[in-house]
């Protein structure tokens, strides 16, 4: 590396990096705070538990980052996870499908659902907020209806140990999440597809003019969240050995909170996978720490609400000012 490029690199601590560094510092402070104020927070067991919940959220938060970057949103992920898990169990228990083919069908369902949301957005011009709000209600309602609110248990030790347990000291879901992180991180930084998400979010009109298939890019982003909701649904079943209509209650909130805390702008164009990963751990750690403080789970939600609000305030001060002056959509 020449001296010149070295100097340039030094100059160039980007705003996105600033946010990530800030978040990392906040994360460490919160870690220290909980460690010194509670007895059982700073234990391997508890860290595993934090990692586990951060991982379920993360698997959906990565595709959600792309969705927000393209100026869309998917709030249906919680009910989508619950229904996918239930659908998986129903196929096995009621229709005698194998685990493998059930998983394949549920994943296909996830892809089709995302495709539907995308088509509704790009061809029928229905805002994703509305479509996914409708799905949020419909999927949870239907899940409760078919199960009459009762869980459906399955018993398969191999499935539970493999996908609901640990490998080499880390939860399986954490390994899967880390793999997904690498793929999404790589895609966002080094591929044309990733660049197109940013281009579409940065200036949809320009992107279209230049020849990017804006509709396809948005559909792809939305397929991402639905697909990963389906996958997380299956992984949840592996963890709790049952399908349950009440599962993943409020998960859409955790996912979107993690993404926004991670520095992604709700207005699109700005966001990184590293930020989202940190955001997931941050949200999971706060939830966990508050439980250790003995705070009522309902109050826990209040605290999380305040955090996402503050995150958006900080976010709009750090990034928005310089970022989102871009043209509005056509």
């Amino acid at each position: 590396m020449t001296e010149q490029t070295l100097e340039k690199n030094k100059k160039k601590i980007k705003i996105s990096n600033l946010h990530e560094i800030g978040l990392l510092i906040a994360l460490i402070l919160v870690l220290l705070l909980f460690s010194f104020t509670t007895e059982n927070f700073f234990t391997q067991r508890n860290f595993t538990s934090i990692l586990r919940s951060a991982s379920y959220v993360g698997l959906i938060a990565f595709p959600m980052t792309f969705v927000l970057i393209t100026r869309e949103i998917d709030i249906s992920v919680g009910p989508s996870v619950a229904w996918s898990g239930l659908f998986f169990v129903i196929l096995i228990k009621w229709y005698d499908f194998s685990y493998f083919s059930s998983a394949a069908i549920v994943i296909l369902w996830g892809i089709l659902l995302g495709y539907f949301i995308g088509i509704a957005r790009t061809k029928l011009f229905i805002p994703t907020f509305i479509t996914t709000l409708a799905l949020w209600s419909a999927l949870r309602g239907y899940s409760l209806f078919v199960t009459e609110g009762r869980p459906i248990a399955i018993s398969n030790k191999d499935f539970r140990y493999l996908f609901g347990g640990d490998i080499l000291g880390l939860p399986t879901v954490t390994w899967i999440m880390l793999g997904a992180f690498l793929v999404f991180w790589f895609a966002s930084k080094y591929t044309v597809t990733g660049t197109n998400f940013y281009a579409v979010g940065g200036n949809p009109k320009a992107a279209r003019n230049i020849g990017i298939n804006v509709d396809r890019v948005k559909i792809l982003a939305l397929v991402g969240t639905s697909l990963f909701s389906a996958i997380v649904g299956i992984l949840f079943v592996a963890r709790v050995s049952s399908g349950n209509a009440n599962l993943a209650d409020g998960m859409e909130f955790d996912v979107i909170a993690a993404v926004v805390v991670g520095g992604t702008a709700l207005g699109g164009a700005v966001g990184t996978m590293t930020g989202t990963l940190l955001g997931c751990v941050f949200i999971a750690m706060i939830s966990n720490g508050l439980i250790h403080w003995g705070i009522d789970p309902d109050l826990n939600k209040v605290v999380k609400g305040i955090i996402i609000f503050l995150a958006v305030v900080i976010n709009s001060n750090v990034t928005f000012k310089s970022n989102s002056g871009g043209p509005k959509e056509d």
Partner: protein
Amino acid sequence: MEILELNNISKSFGAIKALDNVTLSLRSGEVLGLMGDNGAGKSTLIKIIAGNFKQSSGTINFEKQKVEFSKPMEARDKGIEVVYQDLALCDNLTAASNIFLTREIKRNFGLIKIINFSEMFKRAKNIFKDLKSETLPDEEVKMMSGGQRQAVAIGRTKLSKAKVVLLDEPTAAISVRQVAEVLELIKQLKNQGIAVVIISHRMPDVFAVSDRIAVLRRGQLVANKLAKESSPEEVTALITGAIEKA
């Protein structure tokens, strides 16, 4: 050689007649200054050439062949590039990423294609050097001055083997020194045999680079003559309607 011929082009938006029977042609290596008041139809004309809009009536010949572009991609494939009035840049991407958007240089690793940023930065740097512009390839566009943004937008046209470059207000909202840079670039495009259409409200800029001046008034072509046979005074009068036609 006539590279682009517009025959009796009209365009209506509902009740608004944005273009009314415009006939105009363009030669390789020629710079045409397209002038007119706000709403005269200049941008509409450019957007029809570039395939953004379809004309309501009339025909377009490109290299003596009749063409009908249904989207900008098709015009670009033929060698018609536009720099839009609103620039059409993505603020959140770097200069190089903007220049190469949809035409990224990639390295193949089996099925995986990775964007070759170092090559893109290198080529973008050369493009900016040609434009005598101090624009950094790896800087995000949102940090840039109007002139640098213009260099990025014009840089896009240098990437392809454009035969016709259409510039909508390239010298609006940039500093005097940068105007000189942009005009210099237009001269370079001309020297390379590229046909250029420049839309501008700035009389001195148009006269500095144009071989020919065309004036639109309320959708009608009221003048189409050599720059050296006209004058800023005459063009001003044509734009306002003080002179009916020339």
